[in-house]
C-alpha cells in the first residue's frame, strides 16, 4: 500500500519536474548568454498557456497549439529583449533585471485586461486522456507524456549545443562574447536567438502545463518563484545543474507531501536554503557570483 503511494508521488514529482525543467532551461540559457535573469520568463510561460488555450479553441488540435504557441511567444520574447536588454546593454545587469521585472508587471496586466481574471481549462489531448494501471498503481498517462517530452527536449537541446554549428556559436558567445565578436560571430543575432529560444521553451512549458493546471493570470508569478529557485540552486547558466535542481525540488515537495503533509513546500525551500549554505552560487555555479 505504501509503496504504491510512494511510486505515485515519485511519478507526480517527476512530471512536475518536467515542467520546471522546461521553464528553467530557457531561463538559465538566457542567463548564461547575457548574465541577466529574465523576470518576464514567468509571464511568457503564462502567455504560452493562454495562446495554447486560444489555439485549442480555434483549431481543436492540442498538438498544433503546442507547436504554434511557442513560436508566437518567441516573437514576444524577441520584443522583450529588444526593449529591455538591448538599450541597457552598458548598464549593470541588475538594472536589466529590474527592467524585465517592470515589463513582467506590464505584460501580466495586459493579460488580465484582455482575458480577465478568470481561469480557463484546457482539456487533455485525446491520446493521453486515459490512465494506465499497473496492478493497483494508477498513473494518468499525460503525466508520463510530460516526463518523456521533457526528456526529449533536454536531449534535443544537449545535441543542439554539443553537436551543431549553431550550438558551437552559442557556446562560444556565452563563453567570451568579445572574442566571438572578433571572430566575426554576429553575437547580437546569437543572443537574440537564445532569448527567443528560451522564451519558446517557457511557452512550451506553459502549453504543456495548461491541461494539468488551469490557465489563470497569476500562473506566471507562481512559476517564476520555482524557476528562480531551480536555476540558482542548480547554478546559474548550468544546464545539468538546472535539471538536477528541478528534480530535487519537485521530489522534495511531492515525497515531502507523504512525510510532512501540507508543509511540503516549506520543507522544499528549507532544503534549497541548505543547498545555498553549502554552495552559495548553486550546485554547479561559478565560484565567483556575478
Amino acid at each position, binding site marked *: 500500500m505504501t509503496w504504491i503511494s510512494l511510486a505515485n508521488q515519485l511519478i507526480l514529482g517527476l512530471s512536475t519536474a518536467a515542467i520546471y525543467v522546461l521553464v528553467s532551461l530557457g531561463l538559465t540559457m538566457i542567463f548564461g548568454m547575457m548574465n541577466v535573469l529574465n523576470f518576464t520568463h514567468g509571464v511568457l510561460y503564462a502567455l504560452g498557456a493562454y495562446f495554447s488555450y486560444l489555439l485549442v479553441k480555434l483549431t481543436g488540435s492540442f498538438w498544433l497549439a503546442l507547436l504554434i504557441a511557442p513560436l508566437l511567444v518567441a516573437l514576444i520574447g524577441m520584443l522583450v529583449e529588444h526593449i529591455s536588454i538591448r538599450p541597457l546593454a552598458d548598464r549593470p545587469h541588475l538594472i536589466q533585471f529590474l527592467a524585465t521585472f517592470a515589463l513582467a508587471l506590464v505584460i501580466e496586466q495586459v493579460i488580465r485586461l484582455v482575458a480577465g481574471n478568470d481561469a480557463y481549462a484546457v482539456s487533455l489531448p485525446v491520446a493521453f486522456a486515459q490512465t494506465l494501471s499497473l496492478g493497483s498503481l494508477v498513473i494518468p498517462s499525460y503525466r508520463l507524456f510530460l516526463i518523456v517530452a521533457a526528456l526529449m527536449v533536454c536531449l534535443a537541446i544537449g545535441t543542439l549545443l554539443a553537436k551543431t554549428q549553431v550550438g558551437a556559436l552559442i557556446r562560444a558567445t556565452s563563453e567570451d562574447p568579445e572574442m566571438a565578436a572578433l571572430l566575426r560571430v554576429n553575437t547580437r543575432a546569437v543572443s537574440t536567438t537564445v532569448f527567443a529560444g528560451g522564451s519558446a521553451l517557457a511557452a512550451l512549458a506553459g502549453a504543456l502545463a495548461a491541461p494539468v493546471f488551469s490557465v489563470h493570470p497569476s500562473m506566471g508569478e507562481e512559476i517564476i518563484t520555482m524557476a528562480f529557485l531551480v536555476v*540558482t540552486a542548480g547554478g546559474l547558466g548550468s544546464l545539468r545543474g538546472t535539471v538536477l535542481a528541478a528534480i530535487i525540488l519537485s521530489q522534495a515537495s511531492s515525497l515531502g507531501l507523504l512525510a510532512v503533509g501540507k508543509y511540503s513546500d516549506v520543507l522544499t525551500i528549507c532544503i534549497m536554503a541548505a543547498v545555498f549554505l553549502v554552495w552559495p552560487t548553486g550546485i554547479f555555479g561559478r565560484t565567483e557570483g556575478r
Partner: protein
Amino acid sequence: MNNRLRPPLWLSAWLMFGVALAFAPISPYTATLATEVIILTLWAVSYNLVYGYMGEISFGHAAFFGVGAFGVPLLAREFNLPFGFNLAGGIVVACLFGALVSVIIRRTRGVYYAVLTFVLAEVLYVVAIKWTNFTGGDNGLPVSRPGLLASPLSYALFAFVIVTIALVALHRIVNSPAGRVVQAIHQNERRARQIGYNTDAYRALTFILSGAFSGLAGALYSPFIQFVSPDLLFWTFSGQVIIMTIIGGSGAFYGPVLGAAVFVILRDFISSWSASSAVIGGVALAKLGEHWPLFMGMIFFLIIVFEPAGIVGIVSRFKRTWSRSKYRSELVG
C-alpha cells in the same frame, strides 16, 4: 556642514507636512491617504539602506514588512500585550528573521542576493498561507487599534510621529561612520575588506537594520488597514517597495520619500478612474482603472531606461539648467 544643528531640507519639508496634517482641515479620506504615504515612506527609506547605500537588490523585503504587520495581531492574541509593545515586537521578530536570512546569504552577491532574498521571503508566505490556525491563512486576520487612535486623523498623526523618529534615526545611521563603511563597500567591497573592515558583518548589519525598520513600517501598517493577510508577504509586494525607491531616486536619502508619495498618489489617481464612465479609444477608462500596476510598471520601466536617478535625478537636472540660465542672465545683465 557649517551648522550641525540646522536640520536638513528634507526634514524641514517633512515637518511642515506634519504640521499641515495636524492643523489643516483635511477630510478623513485625505488623512488615510497621508497615513499610507507616511508608512510606506518609512518602508522605502529603510529599503534604500540595502538598495541605495549597500548596492544590493533585496527582493524579499515584504517578508520584513509582513512579519511586522502580522506581529501586531498575533502578539496581541498570544501574549495579550498592549499596543505599543506589539509595535516593538514586530521589530524584534523582523530582526530575528533578518539575522536568520543574513546567515544564509552572507556569501552571496548580485543576482544571487536578489534571488535568495526573494526565495527565503517566499518561505514565510507559504507558511502564512498554510498555517491557517495561526495566521488565518488566505482569509487573514482582523487587527484592532486602541480607541485613542480610532479616527483616521489621530492614527495619521501617531504614524507621523513614529515615522519621523525612525527617519531621523535612519538619517543618523547612514551618515554615521558605520554608514560610510557600507557606502565604501558599495563602491568597492574588495578594497574595503583589504583595509580591514569585516565587510560580511557590515552587510549583515545593514540588512538586519533595514529589515527592522521595514518591520516597524509593517507593524504600523496592519493597524492602519485594520487587517492583515499573507498578500503582505508575497513577492509582488516586495516589488512595490523597489518601484517606490527607484521612482523616487535611490541616490539621495529623501528620494524614497518622494517615491512613496508619488506611488500612493498615482495609484489612487489611476484607481479612481474605475468610477468614471468615459471611453477612450474603445477602452473603458473604468476598466483601465483596475489595472493600475500596468501604468506603474510602464512608469517604472521608463524611469529605469531614461532617468535611473529617479525623481531626484529629474529635480537635479532642472536645478542644473536653472542655475546655468541664471548664470547666463547675470553675464548678460
